[in-house]
Structure formats: C-alpha cells, structure tokens
C-alpha cells in the first residue's frame, strides 16, 4: 500500500518538500548539539529537563488519544466512528515516533540508548515508558495496517486481530499513566508529587489529542475527497468537551490541595508559575487559564459546539490551553523552585527550538504519508467521501440518498 504515498498532486509533493527542508534545517541544529553537547540548550543544573521532555509528555497524550475513537467503535459497537478509526491509529503511530525522537534528542549519550534494553531495569519508570511506547507503536502499526489492507481488499477485518485491538485500547491508557508515573514518583518535586497526575494526564490527553486529530482531519478534508461523518464528528467534540471539563476540574483540585493545606512546598511551584516567574511565563500561564475557560464555554454551549465554522477556532484555543499547561508549565513548574527553594530561570534556546521543529516536522511527514495512504484507500473504496451538499457518504442525510447507494457500487 506504500505506493499510494508516491502518487500525489504537486501540492502534496510541495508540502513534503517543505517538511524535508524543515527537517534539514533542524537536523543541522541537532548535529551541532551532538558535536558540542547539550550545552546548546537552555537547560541547567536545576532545570535538568526542558522543552524536549515536555514535548514528549504532550505528544504521549496525542498518541494515547487515538483510543477515544477506537474505543467507542470496538467496546460500544458505535459504528459511526468506523471510518475515522484508522486516522486515530495512524496519528498514534506518528505521535509515538515523535515521542521516541524527543527522548533521543534529549539524552546526553544517544549512542548508548540501547543500554535501556541491554540492562533492563524494572525499578526505573523510564524502562517501562520505553516498553509501553514501543508496544503501543507496534500494536498500532499492526492493527492500522492490517485493517486498512483488509478494507482495500474488500474483506472483513481478520478475526485474529481482535485481541490485539482490545489490548491496544487498554494499552493506550497505560502509555499515559506510565508517563505520569515518570513524574509523580519523585520526592522533592512537589508540583509532580500528586496522585492525581496520571488522571490529569489522561484527561488532558483525551481533550487535546482528539482536538489535534480533528484539526488535522479538517485539513485532510480540504485537500482530499474524504469527509468526516457528522455523527462521528459531533461524538468526538462531545468527548473533547467532557475531557476538558474533567481536566480543568482536576487542575482545580490541585489548586485546592496546595492552598487550603497551606503547605509551602505545594504552593511554591504554582505561585511561581502564575505570579513570580518572568513576565512572559506568567502571561503564558494566565493565557492557559483564559484559553481553557473560553474553550470550555464554547464546547459546553450546544449552539457554539455545533457551529462547524467556529469549531476549528474552539479546538485551536483548547490545544493552546492544554499545551501551555502540559507542554510548557508542567516541566518548568516541577523544577522551579528547586529543592533549595531557589529559582533558576529556564527558557528554551533557539537551537533547542530548531531541534524540536525537526522532530515535529518528521511527525508531520509521517502523518502526511500515512493519511495520504488512508484517504487514497478510502477514495478507492468510496468510504466517507464528500458529497456536493457537504455531507459524507456515511451520513444518513436527505440531500443525497441515491449517492449513498451508488458509492459502494462504484467501488
């Protein structure tokens, strides 16, 4: 099926070329980091993890979120999602690979990375994180690819695949839980030392992940004949709305625990992020709260939620909010103030951002290629194609009843 990725329009090739240029530029920065060491980053003795690890953490959420489409389909037989499942799985593949790359660019001795497998250390959560990430990547590759191949051959999905699908659904929860354990088991880092961190991670993943997926799907709709079914879309938006509300509720629990208990160690990181950090970071953290509030208002109000013109902006605001919280504040807040209650400022350097750009561009490239393959197969099969009235062939709308019947006949 890979050959489908090779046949594309000029615009498709232009986009691929653009991504390759970004990857090229970023890899120069990475080669420089390899030559001189991690001193090219803004990290330091007190803030020993930075932008790379926080991106890793955010993207694990994206990887885990695919389950929000897969689970209704397989656990609840909610078949409206059927033709979206493959995109959730392919997104997870790209996200897993980006996660691994962010870890790879973060370690000081990348050539020794295999030591994690050569000397397996079950007491280290990092070992388990590697295990669950590799496992989740393999499961999604296997399930996604096999299902798509079966679709293309007009065959039912093979029976032997079922156990792998069920395992992958449960596995999705494990990858974000284990990533939270990476943080929440550390003494002396009060911002992370909270039992609710794994739950917070999952809640934030299940709103931000589907939001990113929907945004990418909207772009996909623009450039291909694929069209999301309206029911599937509205279900996903409702999931996002619930998850975002739970996410912010969990955040409020943290605030209550820290400030009602009056424990200095628990209050310091929060007051640092929202009041005492440098003005840019403080502004960004308040932007997070503002964006979170706006996105919740827009999502819980049916009039705004069902407005498809407004939806992309709602989702962007939500992604900004969750990224500021988890992709920026989480790691910085965990390390500052340091164990001595002293403050060491951290801000990513230009080179750090270039290397991150490289990883994101690689992720975008993988998403592009995989989505190109998936949409081409769907086009061949006539699944979920756009109708002139703006509906999908999977919708039971009145505007094109004939075409719904025609579509399979064409295939």
């Amino acid at each position, binding site marked *: 099926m890979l050959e489908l990725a090779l046949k594309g329009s000029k615009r498709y090739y232009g986009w691929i070329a653009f991504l390759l240029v970004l990857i090229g530029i970023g890899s120069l920065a990475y080669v420089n980091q390899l030559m001189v*060491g*991690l001193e090219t980053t803004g*990290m330091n003795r*007190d803030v020993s993890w930075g932008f790379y690890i926080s991106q890793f953490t955010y993207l694990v959420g994206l990887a885990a979120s695919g389950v929000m489409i897969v689970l209704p389909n397989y656990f609840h037989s909610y078949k409206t999602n059927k033709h979206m499942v493959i995109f959730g799985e392919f997104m997870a593949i790209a996200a897993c690979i980006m996660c691994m790359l962010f870890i790879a660019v973060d370690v000081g001795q990348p050539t020794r990375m295999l*030591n994690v497998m050569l000397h397996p250390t079950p007491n280290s959560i990092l070992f388990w994180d590697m295990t669950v990430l590799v496992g989740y990547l393999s499961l999604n590759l296997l399930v996604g690819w096999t299902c798509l191949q079966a679709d293309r051959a007009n065959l039912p999905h093979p029976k032997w695949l079922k156990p792998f699908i069920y395992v992958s659904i449960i596995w999705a929860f494990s990858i974000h839980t284990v990533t939270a354990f990476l943080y929440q088991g550390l003494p002396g880092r009060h911002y992370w030392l909270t039992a609710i961190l794994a739950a917070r991670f999952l809640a934030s993943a299940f709103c931000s992940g589907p939001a990113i997926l929907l945004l990418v799907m909207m772009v996909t709709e623009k450039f291909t004949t694929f069209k999301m079914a309206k029911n599937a879309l509205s279900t996903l938006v409702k999931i996002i709305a619930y998850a975002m509300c739970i996410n912010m509720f969990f955040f409020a629990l943290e605030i209550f625990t820290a400030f009602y208990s009056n424990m200095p160690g628990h209050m310091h990181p929060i007051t640092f992020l929202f009041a005492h950090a440098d003005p840019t970071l403080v502004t960004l953290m308040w932007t997070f709260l503002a964006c979170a509030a706006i996105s919740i208002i827009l999502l819980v109000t049916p009039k705004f939620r069902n407005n498809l013109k407004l939806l992309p902006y709602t989702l962007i605001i939500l992604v900004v909010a969750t990224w500021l919280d988890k992709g920026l504040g989480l790691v910085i807040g965990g390390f500052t103030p340091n*164990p001595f*209650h002293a403050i060491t400022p951290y801000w990513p350097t230009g080179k750090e951002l270039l290397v991150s750009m490289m990883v994101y561009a690689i992720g975008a490239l993988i998403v592009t290629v995989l989505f190109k393959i998936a949409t081409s197969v769907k086009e061949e099969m006539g699944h979920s194609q756009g109708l002139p009235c703006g509906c999908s062939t999977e919708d039971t709308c009145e505007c094109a009843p004939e075409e719904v019947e025609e579509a399979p006949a064409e295939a």
Partner: protein
Amino acid sequence: MKNNRRTFIKLAGIAAAGLAVAPKALASSGGHSPVKANPKGLHATQWAMVIDTTKLHTEEEIAKLAEACHAIHNVPKIEGHKEVKWLWSDTYAHTFPEQENPHLAEEVHHRDFPLLCNHCENPPCVRVCPTKATYKRPDGIVAMDYHRCIGCRYCMAGCPYGSRSFNWGEPRKNLDLSKLNPEFPTRMRGVVEKCNFCVERLAVGKMPACVEASEGAMVFGDLNDPDSEVRQVLREKFTIRRKPTAGTEPCVYYVI
C-alpha cells in the same frame, strides 16, 4: 515405584556432589581470577558522615574543602547554572528548607553549610536510573558508572538534594590539563556525575579528601558499627539531616 525412587536418590546424590564440586571447579577454571580486597582498604556496611557546623561554617573554609575534592576528582570549573560541583556551600534556609524558623539564632543564620551527596540508604536516584549507571554499593556508597550513563538526567530529577551535576558540554575544556590528577578519570560530555564519598581513597585505606582537609570538623565511619566514631558523635551531639520527609534516609548528619 521402588525402582523410580532408587534412581531418583541416585541422581539426587550425583547432583548434590556436582553442586558441591562445581564452585571450586569453576573457580580454578580461570574464568574469573578471584578478586582479593586490598587488606589496607577501609570497609563498612554503611558509610556515613557527621559534619560539625559549629566548627566548620564559613564559606572560605568550605571552599577549601571543595577545592581539595574537586582537584583530586578532576571536577571542571564552570560558571553559572551549568556548573559541575561535588561539594559546595549554601545557607541554612537552602540546606534545611523545611526546618527553618524566622527567629533562628542569628549566628546559625549567618553560617554556611557544606553540601554534598547524602549517599542515602534509600536513594531515589538509584530507583529511577534506567540503566543501573547509578547504583548502591554494599558499603552504602551511591556510585556512578560513567560509561553506562546515557545522560537521561532522570537521577537529577529524582534527587531531592540537587546533588548531581550533568556535563552539558565537554568537561575537559574547563579543566587545567596541566594540573589533572592522573589517578582519577576525567569525564566525557553528556554524563551525570556526583560526589562518590572518595570511594577510591577508601579502597587504599585513606579517609575522604574533605574529611582529611576538615581538621576534625567532619567525622566519617560505619553507621552500622556501634563503636565507630560516627556513632559516638551521633550519640553525644544533637544532629539533623536534610529533608527527612523525603524518606531517603540521608547518611550525612549535621551538628548544628
């Protein structure tokens, strides 16, 4: 049935004989030459240190110890937040953040306190290390294998005492190469390093460099030996440890 039991007993007898002989046979086979400990070396089941801050509390005094430590371990001098340090000093508030009060004796408030790796009995850095590059020796010293370390810096996130440094750049750039101690390795970039309780000196019967340079303000010995000098001081004087709430059981004690 009877026959079976007989064969079983026979086999068990042969197996037992084999087990008894095997270790000796293996030892003499030359796979590994038997390692003999240096008879002059110092041994303990849990090394510990007591620092008398009534005798040692000025920045200059501590800087002298740090210099002794850093010189023999080829620790690079780097300014700013990317520094590498094994032994350093800080204020009371930073050393004992949970044990501060606003009306502390002024004299204590003005003291400086020597800081180093606590060689915890229950070290979180060992727990989190994904490659066993940080490990706990049978004598309680939390040691590092610089050749195993992948530089993930999980141990730095795990340590509640900020006792670890990472070589963000090439450490030899910041070393006076003419004054290197040839008996201790330098490090490469991209690995974590920390105080090792002078394990290389203990092995040849010497006390840690800072203890030697402290002129009696630091006492070093076996925490599990009731007759050791360390235990004697702990019995006689009131001591505190850093961040006891972290549950790591630090083995560096401070006389205040």
